[in-house]
């Protein structure tokens, strides 16, 4: 099964942009000590990711019948978010209220869920042929 698809690449690019904007907004509001706005930035960022992934993932699986249990999108989000966050600290763009530890803890905990997701995907994969659920091929 083709894992890296056009929709996944579009998602990765959009997510990269969202993540840079989110990190910028977060650092800016923290530097300005407007802590309540940090929640707003986080919620908007989360909603944007959800809507984008939902639409691109749904359109892709409907058109191509591909079943990957959302693993591609989860893994892409994990990598892009981790990459942007790490770079943000390496380049020194972070506010004094942000710590790299929070990023690392998030990556470790999220990483456990990515591994669980991968195990679920691997088990479901045996029920598919070229990414299409066997029960849906000749239905």
């Amino acid at each position: 099964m083709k894992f890296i698809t056009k929709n996944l690449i579009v998602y990765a690019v959009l997510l990269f942009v969202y993540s840079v904007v989110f990190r910028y907004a977060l650092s800016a509001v923290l530097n300005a000590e407007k802590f309540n706005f940090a929640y707003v930035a986080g919620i908007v960022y989360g909603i944007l990711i959800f809507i984008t992934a939902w639409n691109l993932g749904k359109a892709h699986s409907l058109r191509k019948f591909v079943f990957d249990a959302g693993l591609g999108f989860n893994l892409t989000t994990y990598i892009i978010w981790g990459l942007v966050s790490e770079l943000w600290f390496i380049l020194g763009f972070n506010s004094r209220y942000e710590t790299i530890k929070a990023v690392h803890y998030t990556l470790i905990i999220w990483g456990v869920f990515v591994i669980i997701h991968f195990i679920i995907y691997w088990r479901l994969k045996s029920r598919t042929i070229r990414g299409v659920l066997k029960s849906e091929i000749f239905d």
Partner: protein
Amino acid sequence: MKNTDRYKNELLTTWEETYKKGQLTLWIFLALKDGPKYVNEIRDFIEEYSEGTISCEEQSLYRALRKFNHLKIVGFSSGKGNKGPDRKYYELTGIGIEILASFITRNIKLFFNKKLIELMNLK
């Protein structure tokens, strides 16, 4: 209609509905074995040779054909349409031809057994 007749008819219709559900694939493959066809021709073939017992919506056919194309069972090429844009002419691939032949051998030919023909009162 008597109650018994209505009951028998209801049972028969329910059986037929279930039976026909799984038949669309076979009919699509038979239509394409007959030669490359665009969607409307496939639908017409199915309706004609099933004597109207199997009817299929265009959307169901497109969905099935896209799925079979993804699975390399069906291929297509573009051809001229009547006045309008080019049409997709679908055909069975090598894999499609082979699995259809195997399916017929394993599931259809057994009905041509002499005993079964007698039981179905076809003689």
